[in-house]
């Protein structure tokens, strides 16, 4: 029991927001008479929040380096508009248009990264300018009107599902199988990690807790895939998101580049004198943000099946809130990809839950604001306690 308490204390910061997310889900599940966790609603929740989560991943990197990006909503709208012109007006095939759109996003990111990294204008100002500039360009490109409809193949990114293999009856069999495969893979990796830790004589989670954690992960994963399988299976966008999360988690935790980004955010001067190419790194973080904003813009346009001048308004605020709720530090150097995703989900579940129980938009905004404030206050309180 004592070890349990100790583990709980040392992990409350790491898992605190995750536990909060689960509590919020249970709360709305109760308040909405069981509607929140219905397969249809879960699927909707993923589709509704996908573009914010994509933005949150890019924003996390920006915030870790100690900067901010206010322009992502406008950039997303701009790229969405450009893609619409290419596909709808000029009949370009959608894969080519998508690649070109992402390149466009990279160029936008490079433009902002140049001013931030090399001219050293504060990112707040550069991206505030970008927010206005790219909103203006969006209206210009679209001539103030919506452009629609997109080709079927393009829309499938946001609205399509993984095809099934026969034999599952009402259940989406492939989805269930993927859940099982992922569980097995997870168990294998965890066990392998444990063996390596043993070899390097690192303190390990006591065996009973190890099994408890593994069991929890396996149960949640399979429950989740089972719920999805009883509707239409895995949405395409979820697969894209999962790949992004896996890739960026790996980059930030395991690679030299990730380490350099954290170091740069933690203490730019010390990082520079340690051989980190700080300017180059900052530049590329903004380029990356540009690409992610472009991707979010495409996903949003595909979901809406239209590019509109008003697309992406306030996206930047949701993405920034997600990153901070997920435990990133406003001064840089701290934050995780998973944290940002959980932060985004907290916001998403609250949006969805409050809509389900018929709470007005006025209340929704206010409550979301308070959650952001309380989440950061909670995080700060924990940090002070551990210091």
């Amino acid at each position, binding site marked *: 029991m004592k070890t349990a308490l100790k583990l709980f204390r040392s992990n409350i910061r790491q898992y605190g927001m995750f536990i909060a997310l689960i509590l919020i889900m249970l709360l709305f599940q109760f308040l909405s008479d069981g509607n929140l966790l219905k397969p249809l609603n879960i699927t909707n929740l993923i589709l509704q929040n996908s573009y914010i989560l994509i933005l949150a991943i890019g924003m996390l990197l920006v915030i870790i380096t100690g900067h901010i990006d206010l322009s992502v909503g406008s950039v997303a709208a701009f790229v969405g508009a450009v893609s619409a012109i290419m596909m709808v007006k000029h009949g370009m095939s959608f894969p080519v248009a998508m690649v070109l759109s992402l390149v466009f996003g990279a160029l936008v990111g490079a433009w902002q990264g140049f001013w931030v990294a090399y001219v050293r204008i504060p990112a707040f100002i550069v991206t505030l300018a970008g927010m206005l500039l790219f909103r203006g360009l969006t209206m210009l490109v679209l001539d103030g009107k919506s452009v629609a409809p997109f080709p079927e193949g393009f829309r499938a990114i946001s609205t399509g599902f993984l095809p099934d293999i026969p034999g599952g009856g009402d259940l989406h069999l492939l989805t269930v199988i993927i859940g099982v495969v992922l569980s097995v893979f997870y168990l294998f990796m965890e066990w392998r990690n444990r063996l390596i830790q043993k070899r390097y004589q690192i303190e390990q989670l006591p065996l009973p807790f190890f099994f408890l954690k593994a069991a929890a992960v396996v149960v949640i994963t399979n429950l989740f895939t089972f719920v999805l399988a009883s509707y239409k299976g895995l949405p395409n966008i979820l697969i894209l998101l999962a790949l992004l999360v896996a890739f960026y988690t790996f980059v930030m935790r395991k*690679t030299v580049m990730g*380490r350099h980004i954290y*170091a740069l955010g*933690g203490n730019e001067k010390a990082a520079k004198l340690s051989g980190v*190419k700080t300017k180059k790194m900052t530049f590329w973080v903004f380029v990356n943000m540009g690409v992610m904003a472009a991707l979010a813009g495409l996903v949003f346009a595909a979901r809406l099946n239209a590019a509109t001048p008003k697309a992406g308004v306030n996206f930047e605020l949701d993405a920034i809130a997600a990153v901070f709720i997920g435990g990133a530090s406003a001064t840089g150097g701290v934050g995780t990809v998973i944290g940002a995703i959980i932060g985004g989900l907290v916001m998403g579940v609250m949006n969805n839950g409050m809509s389900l129980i018929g709470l007005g938009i006025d209340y929704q905004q206010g409550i979301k604001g308070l959650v952001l404030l309380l989440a950061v206050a909670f995080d700060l309180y924990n940090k002070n306690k551990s210091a």
Partner: protein
Amino acid sequence: MALTDNILEMRGITKTFPGVKALENVNLKVKEGEIHALMGENGAGKSTLMKVLSGVYPYGSYEGDILFKGKACEFKNIRNSEQLGIVIIHQELALIPQLSIAENIFLGNEQVKGGVIDWNGTIVRTRELLNTVGLSESPNTTAGSIGVGKQQLVEIAKALSKEVKLLILDEPTAALNEEDSENLLNLMLAFKKQGITSIIISHKLNEIMKVADSITILRDGKTIETLRVKEDNIDEDRIIKGMVGRDLTNRYPEREPNIGEVLFEVKNWNVYHPVQERKVIDDVSFNVKRGEIVGIAGLMGAGRTELAMSIFGQSYGRKISGQLFKDGKETNLADISKAIDNGVAYVTEDRKEYGLILMEDIKRNTTITNLKGISKWFVVNDYEELNVAEDFRKKLNIKTPSIHQKTGNLSGGNQQKVVLSKWIFTGPDLLILDEPTRGIDVGAKYEIYTIINQLAAQGKGILVISSELPELLGICDRIYVMNEGSFTGEVPRSEANQEILMKFMTKSRG
């Protein structure tokens, strides 16, 4: 009670933080009108004790009594203690760089007439105060535009403006050069004549010997002893013994130099100021041999750090010209990663600002300079990293519960060892050490010197920049002296002494 001539008595002070007892039954008696030194190794509890006294840790968060002028005090915050005339000047200066000297001095204590600030009165009072501390600057100068030494004086003027009875200086000379330190100490002696009592915390023994009447030594959060400098006939070795709890027969470890070929040579090095049109380094040439420890002496502002940084990946200055040779071959260290790849390491002067990422742990700080060394295809091997950091922790005797500790929580000496680790990990041939023992206690200094000696014995070249002449004389084989951006002298160990170095340090190039 009234019979005592102690202005301050702290009795049985115990202060616990979660998990640690920072102070345990500490007693401190300070006589009226004396200069009382508080000494002890880093982490001995000096700063904590002063924070208890000044109300940073409010009454109730510690045990024990504080008596000021015979009256028991229960300070709830700094304002309470300042009202009684207890003023503390912290190690890290608390001036606001954008505000003027006058505004800084009267910050929180504004001179008000009829509800608005009386600027004329403020300026007049500031002039008087600046006169008292011997600072000839206009009250309207911004605090950020004057040097550290002068800023320290502004802090003291600020303290004087509050009708100070007991002045507490926490390592006041740590960032000052010899001349400014000297001025400051003289100022303390002048205050003593005016009846102001002072408590000084310092690691510099010679300064303490110069000004202190009594010395209280703390070790591991406990009072060890209080010495009367004159009555007890105290010398530096006696103080060290009290601080480390054993005789430290030699402050510098023994070493048998084994000097080889020229490792690194700089020829006709010139550097311009990053923004102004003036030369900061003027035609400097020098060399370092394998296995040799070479010192660079000089006053603050002589250009020593600028020289080191301009060599190290051109991280300082503009229009850099000159040649660098390593092992006889000309090399190009155009950026920091090239410098690291070419076996040059630079341990910065300011370890908190430039040396460490304080929010990250020991292991990550250790490996940041050479992640390539523990990576395959740009993927960092976390376990290899643990091995490396653990290895350095043992070799350099870094005192910490684990290598997962954040470097911000370590003491100065241990932080410096982490900075050394991260540079030794790059496998350098030449190590440039800028003020390697600043703000570090005697015991840790000895360990740092030992590490330096070991590195030299491995055939590496060591270049040490230091403002403490005894340190240079104690560890170097050869000392270059710098003044106003150029080298004014080169002295081998056998001929070096403080007077000769001082003479070159103040000499202009003829």
